[in-house]
């Protein structure tokens, strides 16, 4: 369970996570956040699973455009 103090830290951390996982968090905030992560296993899990979520969506094979869709596109645009 979160203590009240840790919970407060965690809430603040969540607000910065987007920039952090994108590598866009400014250096001072980044250091502060990493110091918190070193002490808070719950937030480490949050960061790790958030990163993995993004990677899974990014890498899951995108359905290729079907060949017949492509053929019809060229036909409609008169580029066969």
């Amino acid at each position: 369970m979160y203590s009240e103090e840790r919970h407060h830290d965690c809430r603040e951390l969540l607000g910065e996570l987007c920039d952090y996982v994108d590598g866009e968090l400014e250096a001072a905030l980044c250091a502060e956040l990493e110091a918190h992560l070193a002490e808070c296993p719950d937030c480490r899990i949050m960061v790790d699973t958030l990163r993995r979520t993004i990677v899974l969506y990014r890498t899951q094979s995108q359905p290729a455009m079907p060949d017949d869709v492509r053929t019809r596109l060229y036909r409609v645009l008169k580029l066969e």
Partner: protein
Amino acid sequence: MVDDAFASETELLRGLRAGEAAAYRQLLELHSANVYNVAFKLLGDEQEAEDVLQETFMSAFEAIDGFEGRSKLSTWLYRIAYNASLMRLRKRSQMTSFSLDVPTSGVDQDGDGSRVSRHLVDWSSVPDDQLLTAEAREVMDRAIAELPETLRSTFILRDIQGLSGSETAEVLGISVPTVKTRLHRARLWLRDRLSDYFDEGARGVRAAAIPANRGS
């Protein structure tokens, strides 16, 4: 495949404005699959995605003379496709009386991502082949489909298609800070949904591993 006869975007644009068929074909080769993917992920329907794909390139070909080249061609095409998809989603929402912007139950409504998730099971190191089963892919597709349109479009463009924050902002007609806020909310929501599912899966894997280890 066609040869990339137009080596730069400037040359391609010149070819398009001159009405050269090779330029049109190259534009399709470069961008049609991405436009289709975005439309399909936004709409979740193959036929509608194909309609948007065709509409996008017909509109682009007609409007190419008015394209000023201030953004990349890809960003411009995404914007046309997004607007066409949005019109279809709005038509659907009018038919079903749902608002596109009302957050799905459970999505952080504060907008700052301050809702601390109760799902803190670490499934981040489970191998891909155990995570990406057909069932898991369905869960992922359902989760993204349940996001409000404003969050879904941001996540699709930024995290799946890999556009930059400013490109995503340009396509959606919103500010970069708004992209960040929406992206943050979308990511947290999707993480929660995957955690619900993978937590159960991870427990299953651990349970299955015990007799296997004993037997080896």
